[in-house]
């Protein structure tokens, strides 16, 4: 079973995303607290990740740079960006670097799950 | 030791000559009517309106513990700047008359405090001999910021040379 990697510097958002996934029977979850952490975990689990869920604004390495870095060794795994109304303008850049799509925070769990389902089955 | 020439304003009180650095002097004005104050130490005579500024007038005779003398047309006010608690204050010194502005090299000023002066050394910067007369160079800031009367007394007239 492959992993879903969540990277967000907010404990709350990580918890929420994790809870939502677990409720929907997604058990393999990796969590990262910032961009750097996410990159390290992604590298350590290369080939075993089914989906990335990445915050845009993170310390140490922002989400856009992270996408760039991830795409250097993983060109296929879908990347969902968690963004906000404010940062929406960055999404064009994120897509240029290989992000698959984006979700504006806050979002409803139900919607989020539908999106995840498009890429990963539990 | 540097031997800088400095300009001093020489004024007289009771035939004695005193010098203060010209850099401290803002201007010298003729006697003008004073709004009198009646406070205890007496040397603070009152205030004058100098172009919209209120300037206290300190009578130097009284400040030096000398007998009061009524002001005449010859009386002048030397407006000096002294460092106050918050900012620069202007104070007018009422003196008998202004004599001269002279250049005095620092080396000519005898800085040794003379024994026998009741004039405390902190009020006196030094003494200088100009031709026949002796001039006491004053430390204005300390004279004007003290509340007490700076008594010169008898000895001033017969300084030990």
């Amino acid at each position, binding site marked *: *079973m*492959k992993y879903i990697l969540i990277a967000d510097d*907010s*404990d*709350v*958002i990580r*918890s*929420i995303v994790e809870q939502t996934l677990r409720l929907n029977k997604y058990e393999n979850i990796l969590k990262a607290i910032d961009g750097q952490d996410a990159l390290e975990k992604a590298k350590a689990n290369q080939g075993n990740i*089914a989906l990335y869920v990445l915050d845009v*604004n993170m*310390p140490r390495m922002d989400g856009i740079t992270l996408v760039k870095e991830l795409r250097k060794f993983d060109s296929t795994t*879908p990347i969902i*960006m968690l963004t*906000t*109304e*404010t*940062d*929406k303008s960055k*999404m064009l850049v994120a*897509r240029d670097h*290989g992000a*698959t*799509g*984006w*979700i*504006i*925070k*806050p*979002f409803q769990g139900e*919607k989020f799950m*539908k*999106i995840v*389902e*498009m*890429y*990963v*089955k539990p | 030791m540097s031997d800088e020439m400095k300009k001093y304003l020489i004024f007289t009180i009771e035939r004695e000559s005193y010098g203060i650095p010209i850099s401290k002097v803002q201007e010298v004005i003729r006697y003008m009517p004073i*709004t*009198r*104050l*009646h406070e*205890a*130490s007496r040397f*603070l005579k009152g*205030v*004058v*309106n100098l172009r*919209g*500024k*209120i*300037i*206290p007038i*300190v009578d130097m005779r009284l400040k030096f513990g000398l007998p009061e003398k009524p002001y005449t047309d010859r009386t002048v006010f030397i407006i000096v700047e*002294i460092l*106050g*608690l918050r900012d620069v*204050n*202007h104070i007018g010194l009422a003196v008998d008359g202004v004599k001269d502005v002279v250049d005095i090299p620092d080396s000519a000023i005898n800085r040794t405090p003379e024994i026998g002066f009741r004039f405390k050394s902190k009020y006196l910067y030094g003494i200088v001999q100009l031709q026949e007369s002796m001039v006491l160079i004053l430390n204005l800031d300390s004279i*004007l*910021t003290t509340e007490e009367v700076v008594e010169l007394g008898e000895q001033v007239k017969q300084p030990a040379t």
Partner: protein
Amino acid sequence: MTVEKKKTIQTFVERLNTLLQGYELGDLVKAVDIQDTLSSLYKELQNLPRMEKFAQLAQHLIRVADGLADPEKEPKAVSLLRSVSNDLNAFLSGTLSGKELGARVRAKSGLFRQVLFGQGIQPVPGEEREAKKTEAIAPRQEIPSGGASVPPPSLGYEVGYFDSIVEDEKLLSQFFSEAKDHLEEAQSILVELEYDPTNKELINTIFRNFHTIKGSSAFLGLRNVEELSHAIEDLLALVREGKIFLSKELIDLVFHGMELLRNLLEGMHINDFKPQEMKKSFRIIDIHPYINLMRRVLDQYKYRKIGEILAEEGKITLQDLQKLLRKQTETEKKIGELVVEEKIATTEDVLDALKKQKTQVAKVKRLGYVKVSNEKLNTLIDIVGELVINQSMLKQELLGGATSDRAERNISQLETITTTIKNLVLSMGMTPISEIFTKLRVVARNTAEELGKSVYVEMRGEDTELDRNVIETIYDPLIHIIRNSIDHGIEPAEERQQKGKDKVGKILLAAEHKGSGIEIVIEDDGRGIEADRVKAKAMELGLLKKEEAESISIKDLYAFLFLPGFSTSSSVTTVSGRGVGLDVVKKNLDSIHGRVEIVSEPGKFTRFIIRLPLTLAIIEGFVTRVGENKYVFPFSAIEEIKVIDASEIMASENGSEALIYHRGAHIPVLKAHRVFKEEEKKNGERILSLLFSLDQSKYCVVVDELIGKQEIVIKNLSDTLLQECPYFSGGTIFGDGSIGFVVDMQGFLESLK
């Protein structure tokens, strides 16, 4: 097909259209919405007679929409969906026949194939999904974007505002500590930014602080926290983009917002993260004044886009603009370029608009300030004071003699100009009181923390301006009053709860212009002052006689509180045990001609009311003559003018003290001559006096002549003079050039002791 059925189908198609028009590449939520809409459409069509083809098309479209999840297929999928949905719309509105629709769809079969069978992402693991489950669509819920599209309620909180708070104490407490950490970091960064306002790294970090708080709070349904952090984030976004400079004022504004956030967090904490309880605390903390203030500030800095300028001037239509904006998302081109390319407006128009935008930007950026040193400003105020005096002297001189009409006209014109300059210059020395209010809020919070209490500070009228020097002088007294209020006034949370008050204590800080002065109010909703305890203490200290205790007025009673060494607090706490009492407050205020008054209701509130002159440079004075000089008394302290009949005066046995009996009180009669050492003239039958009310006492001050109330430009008296005459606070020069002395009442009374 029934009418209702057709309507339902039409609704779905319209919805599809709207979703597609606003679709931006990568918008996964919208992608899901589009898929859901298509599923619903398919479900409606499925079993309708003669709609088989339509249903089939919908089924295909569902699969096309799956392509939205794959960046490779997405652009094609979008344009295919857009074009088909337009056709469908036309078909349903009757402008396109079924046949024509079929033809159009067939013409796109190549595109269909590309999207449906191209390479791309497949859901992993497991087989490809079948067509989406056709569940009913829930009524579309607006995703709270927190943006301008959701206008916040202007007054208080709308019904249901707090209903979305999640019932998860663990998550809420997690959020609490996370947000607290972010605020702490933001706080220290903000302090650094005061010295280094353009440091990109700092700005990025602090932006992220609020960004994260906003994001997390939105999830938990903490709408107030979200709105607030969003407002701050918006401001910081502009700073980050270099659109505005992070001035001292803006930093203060952010500080202010952080305080509010802290209050909200505290409201969560104190209620153990129980949403029902939290709501109650939330309700008393109104964030909207701040949000509105922030919005006003941001509006100042916002500038219009080129497209907006062109549309506003009627050079292009709004529809054109929308079309262009849509187009812009697909290209990298600027609106201006597109306008010219599409020949909607001329190059000149665009250049014109660009120029306008530029001046606007320049204006926005320059809106700032010119820095002037305190010294220069003080000198300017001084010189203008002289100008005012000189001009009135000149006027008296000229009007005294025979003057021409022209001279008179000129002089009155000069007077107008002088007055304008005077007001302008005085206003330059004015600062909004928010400068200290913000600091006071920090003091309040720290004090509350020290004492383990919970306090919310509300501010009103923080943009009220007053003299910088006044602000400096009142800072310490205000700190003292606030600490006092939290220490003695605000009860501990349990006690408050028992009394049926909200657990969070409230401190109100308000400033307001009143007459020619300013009124500052500090109010706490705490214990209030118990008159009996003040009486007991006053009697213990021998300030109050038993027989007076019954009849003493509340105002006079409270005045005791301002006496040195007077404290009714039974316990000494770290906060109040610092050796400063309200007497210091009073002394500080006296020095700037301010007055302080207390109003209180036991168990409910204590209110300190401070009245101050607007500026120290000009006061309302009452001019008198004593002996040979003119003396000016501060008008604010004068209760009445009292003409004493010589027979009214009762002398004490040794004749050293004189008293009169006036309105039920014995009032000492003081001769101003004694203080000013002016010559006393013989008492006539009628003695002129001013009745002062100072501290808890009244005094009659005898003068020789009452000249009248006047605006007095205060001039510095040198330290030398003030040292000798501590009963003066300054001097003034009258229109005729004569000098008057401004009396400091505290010093005046002390010199009589």
